[in-house]
């Protein structure tokens, strides 16, 4: 097992795989940074060029591109509050407030550092667990997945801070919004106001961009300063963030494992991972008062999960043919082209290919981290530019980002509506993250509840693993209510 693990590292580092990896990293960097094209579309354009390549070489190109695109999306999230994709929105919650405090460099360093460490931990976790991975994954039927999602919803309680009731109400609104779309159980469109656009539900990217980016743009216009209200503390900024990754090593480690776990389970999808990791970072910290106002731990959590989930995501794609994201769906097409059929053989006979994919992920991220570190401090200075100059640029990012969800004008309508809603929510001090988590998890919860009841009847609640997970959820609620009360008086001590 371990021989294959290290052996595939060597094959990724050999020519031409390494050259293709560099090429993929280069393309992915620009695609991730510039809005409008998107990683998924680029992958589908590049796929035909990999015909006839050796699987390891082809995957070096495609996976490097996929991985780096996800990482650089974090940069726009932190600097401008514009999420690259819906799943990256969790980085905004504390990353952008840090930028506003003049700590953009530190936030970027923390995001990159944690996603680097997360990628490595995820790769190691996968390497160790490959022999038991298939049986492990197969124990999670729809019933267990439903219980896991309930556990995820419980994290909402920790995302609300002291405004407990408001948080739960926003989460409820998110759950209601998640029912928009074609109901698979009756094939009847729900709340679609006669628009087939909404049949597949509210698209996450325009919602998240509207909710989080628009209020920031308005705020920037009102303040009339740069994004950073005060001087950017350039010296040591990025380094400080890197150090934070290890200062709070507990959060980094646990969130990396959460990312890997969520990624490994087929049918949960990557967009859940970062939110759950953020929720965990908040919940496991004794002093929660600074979360949402620029706490570096709130950047480390989703950052660590960001990359480890990519590694985990490879498993359902190659092991079961169930891709966790649009990018993975294209990679799945790539496998078939190369004669690799997802299934048990991928985790035995073709294990070298799987490990080489994991290594590609790790190496591409190391490269991009090193490259970014060299100019992150310069990028961070963007936050000092006057708002009147930055606003048109940010609006461009906002509109292109929302529009690339479906290339439909209605994407912009959704984005603007949620932008107005998000601005009002900020004014009245209602928390927005629970809404997004409700929207993300609501769809999955409904799906797996229906399948569980259909397959097992109500007795699905009596399955041992389901009972265990639901007990955990109850425990988490009790714990967070108790500690929530305590934290009001608690001194801001670091854990």
């Amino acid at each position: 097992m371990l021989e294959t693990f290290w052996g595939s590292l060597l094959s990724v580092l050999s020519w031409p795989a390494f050259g293709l990896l560099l090429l993929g990293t280069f393309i992915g960097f620009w695609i991730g940074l510039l809005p409008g094209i998107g990683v998924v579309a680029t992958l589908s354009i590049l796929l035909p060029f990999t015909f006839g390549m050796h699987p390891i070489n082809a995957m070096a190109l495609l996976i490097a591109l996929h991985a780096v695109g996800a990482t650089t999306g974090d940069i726009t999230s932190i600097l401008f509050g514009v999420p690259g994709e819906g799943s990256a929105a969790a980085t905004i919650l504390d990353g952008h407030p840090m930028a506003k405090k003049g700590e953009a460099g530190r936030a970027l360093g923390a995001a990159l550092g944690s996603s680097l460490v997360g990628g490595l931990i995820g790769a190691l976790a996968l390497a160790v667990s490959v022999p038991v991975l298939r049986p492990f994954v197969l124990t999670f039927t729809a019933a267990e997945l439903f219980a896991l999602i309930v556990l995820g919803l419980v994290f909402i309680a920790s995302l609300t801070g002291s405004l407990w009731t408001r948080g739960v109400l926003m989460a409820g609104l998110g759950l209601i919004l998640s029912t928009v779309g074609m109901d698979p159980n009756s094939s009847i469109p729900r709340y679609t106001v006669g628009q087939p656009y909404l049949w597949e539900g509210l698209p996450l990217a325009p919602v998240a961009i509207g909710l989080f980016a628009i209020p920031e743009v308005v705020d920037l216009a009102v303040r009339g300063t740069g994004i950073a209200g005060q001087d950017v503390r350039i010296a040591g900024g990025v380094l400080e963030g890197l150090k934070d990754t290890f200062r709070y090593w507990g959060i980094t480690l646990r969130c990396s494992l959460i990312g890997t776990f969520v990624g490994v389970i087929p049918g949960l999808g990557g967009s859940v991972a970062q939110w759950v990791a953020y929720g965990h970072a908040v919940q496991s910290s004794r002093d929660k008062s600074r979360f949402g106002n620029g706490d570096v731990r709130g950047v480390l959590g989703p950052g660590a999960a960001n990359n480890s989930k990519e590694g985990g995501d490879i498993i359902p794609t190659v092991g079961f043919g169930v891709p966790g994201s649009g990018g993975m769906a294209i990679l799945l097409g790539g496998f078939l082209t190369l004669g690799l059929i997802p299934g048990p053989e991928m985790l035995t006979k073709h294990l070298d290919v799987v490990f080489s994919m994991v290594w590609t992920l790790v190496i591409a991220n190391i490269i991009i981290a090193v490259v970014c570190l060299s100019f992150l401090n310069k990028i961070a200075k963007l936050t000092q530019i006057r708002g009147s100059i930055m606003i048109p640029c940010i609006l461009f990012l906002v509109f292109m980002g929302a529009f690339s969800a479906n290339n439909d004008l209605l994407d912009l309508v959704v984005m603007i509506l949620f932008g107005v809603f998000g601005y009002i929510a900020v004014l009245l001090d209602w928390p927005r993250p629970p809404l997004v988590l409700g929207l993300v998890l609501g769809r999955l919860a409904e799906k797996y509840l229906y399948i569980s009841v259909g397959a097992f009847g109500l007795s699905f609640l009596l399955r041992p693993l389901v009972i265990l997970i639901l007990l955990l959820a109850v425990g988490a609620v009790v714990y967070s209510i108790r500690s929530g009360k305590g934290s009001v008086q608690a001194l801001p001590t670091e854990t």
Partner: protein
Amino acid sequence: MKKAMPFVLGVSFILLVSLAQSAQPFYAGKTLTILVGYPPGGGYSAYAQVIARHLGKHIPGNPVVIVQHMPGGASIVAANHLFNRAKADGLTIGSLNMFNMYSNYVGKSEGVFYDLAKWSYIGNTRSGIQIFLMRSDSYASFEAIKSAKRPVRLGYATKGDGHHLFGLAVEEGLGVKLNHIFGYGGGGEIDLGLERGELDGRSANLNSYLVSKPDWIKGGFVKILAQGGSAGREGKIIRDPRIPDVPTILELFPKERVQQLMDFASVGELISGVYVAPPKTPEDNLKVLREGFLNTLNDPDFLADAKRLNLEINPMGAKQVEAIVKRALKVSPELVDWVKTVRK
């Protein structure tokens, strides 16, 4: 009569040449767009990408061919756009989900703004063969399904889709209740449900199953109990040559309701890779498109690319497509209502 032959040939030659000349300037230097009703990454997109690589060669004037994605409503958004808003000049064509277009059209769903009888059909890339399969270690025969202690569990993506109708046909034929479970996010997830034991069986598409799960069929993890069959000559339904030992559902259950259900489902299967142009696309351009499309599907270079991507190709011309659509539109309102109540 014999004297007339050279004259007829000559005239038709001149006609052809003038036609070619009039078409050549039209597509020369232009961009032809294939609008796909799904996001990048799925089967519809893969077919369109490969076709785009070769179609330009087979159209006089060699236009640049690009693929655009317009997801939403399982290709209903793209259908509405193409039918109403796209210019009917032959420069925009679409690859849309036929079964969805059909069932929502005859079922008069809200938000449907196209008329299936009015599309300018171009051709079809592939036909699907439905199969009904069970896990070998569950209830792997119709007798076992009939005598099972609980209704057997079958998984689907959406209620009322083609696979569900096939499952309903089995239910009608057997006369026992089956447990249909919906909400899976595609074939991969349904197979995962089978593997982890929450499902006993499913209906699937033979072509994609041979690509995605060849070891399951060969290794005996699942057993195919019935097939929808493919359309032979004169539209007669015959067993697919790749699974000659599996009976068609109509051989097994020659009932009227089964036949009707299969008719309803078959429009999506027989022309599952349909390409259309907006209504009233100019005849000249439509003719060029139809010919270019068929020639592309028979081009050895194209077929080699398709083979590499495991894309099954069964070329079909516009006439045949139109005949199938015409027959499908004659579906009885009573059956449409019945399918609608099933969907609720």
